[in-house]
């Protein structure tokens, strides 16, 4: 009795079981996300917009949540930190 030709879920050259269309190894997490653009300028004076990207504890949301590009995420973090320095936004907690 011979062994199966392909191991399920393993090996890059394993046989395809779904009609030739290869499934991603990481499932839905590996799917490409569409980049989200900021609707308003990421300025430290724009408190109403920046507050949307801060959690109830005052933490800056991650890129996974905001959907921003790396550059916009850095601008967002910088704007929030500047707003905190001048007392426009809290370091901890919600306004």
């Amino acid at each position, binding site marked *: 009795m011979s062994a199966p030709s392909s191991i399920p879920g393993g090996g890059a050259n394993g046989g395809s079981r779904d009609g030739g269309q290869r499934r991603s190894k990481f499932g839905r997490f590996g799917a490409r996300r569409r980049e989200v653009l900021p609707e308003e300028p990421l300025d*430290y*004076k724009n408190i109403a917009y920046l507050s949307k990207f801060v959690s109830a504890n005052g933490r800056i949301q991650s890129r996974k949540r905001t959907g921003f590009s790396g550059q916009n995420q850095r601008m967002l973090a910088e704007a929030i930190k*500047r707003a*905190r*320095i*001048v*007392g*426009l*936004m*809290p*370091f901890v907690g919600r*306004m």
Partner: protein
Amino acid sequence: MTLQRTRTYECMCLLDNREVRNGWQPIKDSTLAIFTKHGAKILSGRRWDERRLAYTIKGQQRGTYLLVYFSADTQALAGIRRDLQFRESVLRSLLIECVEVPQAAYEPEAEFDVNAIPADDAPASEAPAVAAPAEVAPTEAVVATETTSTETNS
């Protein structure tokens, strides 16, 4: 050899309301004098807002923001930052480089009545309003725990 470069900067100054109540124009002029003292050219200096602070700064819960756009030599920034920190009427200051001055900065400043500034609300005055519903909650919690405990026993 020192490198001379003139750039445009934006400075947000948080001013103490105790000083602002004595008059807006004197404190504005004295703050702008810090910039001109170091050879900066003031492009715009106007009141941005008077609002409640997100956290208490030097015992103040409210403050008035002065937004200044100026062009200065890069070597002058250290002196400007130092003088802003030494000035007691300036609670906080943020000095950043600015690509271009927004058009709204050149608009005339709105009338500012310093007597209309609300007084700082002390934290003690807020405590009873918050504590009142909190007193009800523990009794409900005790009742809830009692019911659950009786259910568990039965």
